[in-house]
């Protein structure tokens, strides 16, 4: 009897052990998450049970999860978090989501994790960001991946990596963000750079499509950036580490109809920016109606893109003309072989704007190119030289041609900011893949705010 009881107890113990252990797939422990019937009913609960990221995969079944997920540290290196179906069906929703009694600020917030993969997830309605991977100063987040994800209507950024090296954001969608749909920021300088791949994404109806403060080694290709305030905006700011933004590529993208006047009163998206600073007490706002903005960029290649239907400029480049000590300098950027204005059927007001600051910038082989000249003190060959740029072109300093800088200042200082649209040249766009141009939507009238 005792023997039989002993055997029964041992069997029970074995069953219990198997039940308690996560299932295994391809050498990884599987942590299944679903609303009902799985071991974990929240992603955070599953992540909290991960002992070693490289041995683990968190699989999320279709459903809407009102939670914010947060984890940090290298024990999570190489963790995979994935929807089992498409992002359309696997939703992390920030509405009423809480972390430790506080409103959850981000969909997934991972700090100091290398090789993290987040796939087939839709993060929406978080006050701050959708998917967010970053590293503390002195730490790292090498080689992250965000594949087939969606992000919508998060307060600041959709798919967001900061202080990381390498990595990729591919086959995703991002829309409705108060700053940018996709963001790569604060890339540490590297001797043998690991590039970040941003490809095959559709990014629309954001304040900015791509933004990258002090980003480097970013290859942005084969994406669509459309209906944003501005499409692709690498930029340099002194408030963040590793100035300037440098050594990137923007190639083979479709960058069009970036005429989202989100400053209008009925805009579904509000900018989270209070402005980029002030000049004589007037606020400097983000510019709108532009395809590519290289702000304080060094060594970017803009090549083989289709850039059309942007009501201000197709591609613009300039330094921070307000600060003689700035590292936001317009140097060695090349706009080459782009197809501007869709063969004349959907033009940009001007294909290119350059402030004429610094040097090494050049324009070559672009189809149907028009160059903005605003009471410029220097000739076109000085402001828009062909490649390679002669040393005589450009002012060689942070402040560009006075006429060009004056126009840029007028534009970004427009008051109210929605009145930037007064400088646009509008036209009706021919159809493109059945999409609706954002400039055909009614977001109310541009009125000066009462003093």
């Amino acid at each position: 009897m005792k023997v039989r009881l002993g055997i029964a107890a041992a069997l029970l113990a074995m069953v219990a052990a198997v039940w308690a252990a996560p299932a295994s797939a391809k050498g990884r422990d599987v942590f299944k998450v679903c609303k009902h019937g799985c071991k974990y009913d929240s992603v955070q609960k599953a992540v909290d049970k991960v002992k070693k990221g490289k041995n683990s995969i968190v699989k999320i079944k279709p459903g809407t999860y009102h939670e914010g997920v947060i984890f940090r540290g290298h024990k999570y290196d190489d963790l995979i978090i994935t929807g089992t179906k498409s992002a359309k069906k696997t939703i992390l929703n920030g509405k009423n989501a809480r972390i430790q009694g506080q409103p959850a600020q981000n969909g997934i917030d991972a700090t100091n994790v290398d090789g993290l993969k987040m796939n087939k997830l839709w993060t929406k309605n978080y006050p701050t960001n959708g998917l967010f991977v970053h590293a503390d100063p002195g730490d790292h987040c090498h080689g992250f991946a965000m594949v087939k994800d969606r992000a919508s209507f998060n307060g600041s950024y959709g798919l967001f990596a900061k202080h990381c090296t390498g990595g990729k954001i591919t086959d995703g969608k991002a829309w409705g963000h108060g700053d940018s749909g996709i963001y790569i920021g604060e890339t540490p300088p590297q001797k043998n750079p690991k590039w970040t791949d941003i490809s095959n994404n559709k990014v629309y109806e954001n304040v900015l499509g791509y933004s990258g403060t002090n980003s480097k080694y970013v290859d942005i290709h084969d994406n669509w950036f459309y209906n944003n305030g501005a499409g692709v905006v690498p930029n340099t700011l002194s408030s963040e580490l590793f100035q300037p933004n440098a050594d990137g590529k923007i190639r083979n993208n479709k960058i069009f109809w970036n005429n989202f006047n989100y400053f209008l009163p009925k805009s579904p998206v509000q900018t989270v920016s209070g402005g980029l600073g002030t000049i004589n007490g007037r606020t400097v706002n983000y510019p709108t109606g532009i395809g590519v903005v290289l702000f304080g960029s060094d060594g970017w290649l803009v090549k083989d893109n289709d850039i059309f239907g942007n009501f201000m400029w197709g591609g613009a480049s300039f330094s921070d003309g307000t600060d003689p000590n700035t590292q936001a300098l317009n140097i060695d950027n090349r706009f080459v072989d782009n197809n501007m204005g869709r063969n004349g059927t959907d033009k940009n007001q001007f294909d290119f704007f350059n402030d004429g600051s610094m040097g090494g910038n050049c324009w070559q082989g672009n189809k149907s190119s028009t160059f903005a000249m605003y009471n410029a003190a220097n000739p076109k060959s000085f402001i828009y030289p062909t490649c390679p740029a002669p040393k005589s072109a450009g002012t060689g300093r942070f402040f560009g041609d006075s006429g060009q800088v004056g126009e840029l200042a007028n534009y970004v200082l427009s008051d109210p900011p929605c009145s930037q649209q007064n400088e646009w040249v509008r036209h009706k766009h021919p159809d493109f893949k059945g999409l609706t141009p954002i400039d055909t939507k009614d977001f109310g009238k541009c009125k000066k705010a009462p003093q």
Partner: protein
Amino acid sequence: MQEGAPVRALIRIGVAAALIALAVGALAATGAASPFAKAKTEKVKVLDDFYKPDNVKIKKNKKVTWKWGQDFNTHNVTLKKGPKGVKKSKFTSQTSSAEGFKFTKKFKKPGKYNFYCTIHPDVMKMTVKVKG
């Protein structure tokens, strides 16, 4: 008899006051909120890109609340260095850009706490000094 009544009343009032004082003392000792003496919480604004004030002095067991102001950058409050035995993770906020978001911490251990924003580490730093 009538002459002694005011004395007895005074004694009763004295006893009641002593009991109230004891109760308040007990509440304070357990850390529970006292209805008579609400603990003052120091407030710090999280702004673009600085904390205001950036130097706070408090007594042990007091709280500090950080409140995010109108800004477009994402910020956090992260303990860089604190007294021995204090867990950094217990003093780390979420990263947020949402105006009005709050992060409150009670400081039980005296010493110097150095905080920073990991997103803006060069410019966003502050200190909380806790006296015993």
